[in-house]
């Protein structure tokens, strides 16, 4: 089975985001594999362990992305490819860059994260599938593959939908799909000996969006604890909503 995983490097979810001169500063932050993409990597490894084949991970980005790819290799991926990011790339550009490289090979299944935790657009994987004409199922909570088909339990806003789809297909991972392993030390040592292939898109597609401004979200939350018996609390709450918040 040829399994492809689309992977993005993002900020560590615990990292503090600072914006300076209209850009997010990333000098001092730890970068990780986008957590949803990590579910995709884990699922890919489990698929390979069950059915054989190879797992390839691919990412679009700068040199720093090697770190994320190396981690995927250390988790057990067989091959890694870094597609150089075209200048001024947006989701459309990235999807096309990935598709351009991926189209050279036949994949049985493509896995990716549902969204990335940084920009949260949730577009790249689905656009990639569209470009390559693959069916896609988003937000998988469970995945069964066999007989040229995949049965996907997907998260539909809290409900679960069960879909059957023919291979090749693209499936994106939702939180809950699995518990990603972390690289073992022998895995890390093996990954060190592997080379990460580098490609440059031949015909990059121009971005369709323009970022107007980037700014830090302001948090102006104030907490007021209301004390007393339930009746007193309700009384006070109504008073506050009327008098201070002026919402009722």
């Amino acid at each position, binding site marked *: 089975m040829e399994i492809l995983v689309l992977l993005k490097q993002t900020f560590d979810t615990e990292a503090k985001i600072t914006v300076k001169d209209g850009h997010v500063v990333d000098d001092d932050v730890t970068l990780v594999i986008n957590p949803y993409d990590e579910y995709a990597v884990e699922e890919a490894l489990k698929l390979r362990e069950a059915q054989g084949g190879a797992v390839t991970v691919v990412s679009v980005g700068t040199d720093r992305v090697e770190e994320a790819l190396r981690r995927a290799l250390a988790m057990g991926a067989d091959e890694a490819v870094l597609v150089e990011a075209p200048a001024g790339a947006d989701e459309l550009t990235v999807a096309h860059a990935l598709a351009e490289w991926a189209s050279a090979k036949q994949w049985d299944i493509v896995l990716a994260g549902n969204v990335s935790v940084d920009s949260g657009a949730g577009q790249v994987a689905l656009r990639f599938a569209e470009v390559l004409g693959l069916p896609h199922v988003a937000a998988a909570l469970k995945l069964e593959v066999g007989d040229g088909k995949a049965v996907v339990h997907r998260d539909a806003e809290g409900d679960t939908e069960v879909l059957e789809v023919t291979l090749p297909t693209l499936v994106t991972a939702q939180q809950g799909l699995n518990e990603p392993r972390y690289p*073992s*030390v022998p895995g890390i040592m093996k990954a060190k000996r592997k080379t990460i292939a580098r490609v440059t898109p031949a015909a990059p597609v121009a971005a369709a969006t323009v970022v107007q401004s980037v700014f830090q979200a302001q948090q102006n939350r104030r907490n007021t604890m209301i004390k007393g018996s339930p009746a007193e609390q309700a009384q006070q709450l109504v008073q506050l909503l009327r008098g201070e918040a002026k919402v009722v």
Partner: protein
Amino acid sequence: MADVKAKIKGGSFLLQTANPADVFTPEDMTEEQRMIGQTSKDYAKKVHGKLKEIEANKPAVSRPLMKEAGDLGLLALEIPEEFGGLGLDKVTATVSSEEFTRGGSFAVTLMAHTGIGTLPIVYFGTKEQKAKYLPKLASGEWVAAYALTEPGSGSDALGARTTARLSDDGKYWILNGSKQWITNSGFADVFVVYAKIDGEKFTAFIVERGYEGVSVGPEEDKMGLHASSTATLILEDVKVPVENLLGEPGRGHVIAFNILNIGRWKLGAATSGSSKYMIEVAAQYAKTRAQFGKPIASFRAIQQKLADMNIRTFVTESVAYRTAGLLDVVLGDLDLVNTDIKEAGKRIEEFAVECSINKVFGSEAFDFVVDEAVQIHGGYGYMNEYEVATAYVDSRINRIFEGTNEINRLLIPGTLVRRTMKGELPLMPAMMALQDELTSLTPFEDDGEPLAQERYMIDRAKKVFLMLAGLGVQKYQLALEHEQELLLGVADIAIEIFAMESIVARAQKALAAGKPGLKPEMATVYCQEAFERIGMFARNIMPAIEEEGDTLRTQLSIIKRLLRYTPVNVVALKRKVAEKVLDKEGYVL
């Protein structure tokens, strides 16, 4: 590396100026080493979530966790590949040890196993012993312990009463005695036990839990370290096969003390990790706790604490990695398949002074850090519900085990003198040469390069060290060992010198790489404070060596001249550090 080996000898940091290129720093780590650190951290975080379960049932929960660590390769780092290990270096072990501490006191279980439990066999075992035990210890199938201490012999380890005698058929050593406070006793499968053959020859043995006559006492009721097992190992006519004698009869001390050397450096590494974690906990708390209408993090007093915590940790970390780099130089090419145990002992011993420095500095710096972390929490920090309270009591053991800090301090001048006598360290010529230098001291001159005053301070501190050590040796000669106050003071100066030099070299390297961060500022703050402490040690010791009169006055005036410097505004520098700590909510560089 080979030329570093020729250049850098144990203790030589006191006599020569360090070349930053020869000082290993965390910034020099490879991607692979960092990744292994990350896996150690991921694992430790998982352990952290299970601490309550471990405390409730140590053997049942600890064993699977050890197996899991084994599956990840985390128990195999320092074991040679030929015996199921990964054969990695001490830098990797350092980063891994740092991260393990996020697993609370379970880190003690794990590190006692990989360190004092396993390493005696790695460095001093026969090929057969290695083949028999190391694969199981690497995989976590078996857990190891180190049994040296007895009720009547702690610091004086060679005073052990446990005995070994050869059985009549010559096939077994019969061991009798009891070993107290043995980490991992509750569930260990293999114990490295020290006993005296015929009550005389101190010797190490590999003892399996399954041998008849081996039993373990109840779990100790400890002040802290609740996720680790500590119990007495009881040996009653235990028949240990002759092939399980470790090393050579009568040479158990070589194993016992050298394994402790490694343990001491590693304890330094562990306290670096523990300190970083406490900085995170304290910074986060300081930002959420409000008093007088604002977060306590906005008070300069709290900021100063966070800066001090960060700076001390910077030192602990720099010292640990520098030492790991040194150990890798001497141990890197040691044959661990057919080991020449004499050679192994000699190589590990090389940096005994530096290892003791790691132990003392790291344990005391962490005690400081965790104490301030509690203080930042105020009364909440006194509540067991808060993690700082646990960390506070857990920290206390670090100054006691792996050789108490007094013993380690005394070992520093003791080892230096011994190395000098053996001709391994040219301390005497340096002391002689100093006489001339002292008469022609020139004041500080800025050479225009960064950290000039700090480098000058290090140089001066070394002169103070040599002067006091020289006068001490001259006056007391062999009776010096009874002048413990003097020895402790001289040790403190040596520790400060190694500390200052490790961070200044690191800052210089970082500057050269164009990524200084706050390292130069932190080096400046620490050097100034350490230099002041050195002055205090020197002024306290001097009058104890020299009798009152003109000579003392002259010596004190030399000390005064040696220690002259221009203070910088450390308050401003600390504010800068604190700002970044709060911004990042954690340790910053």
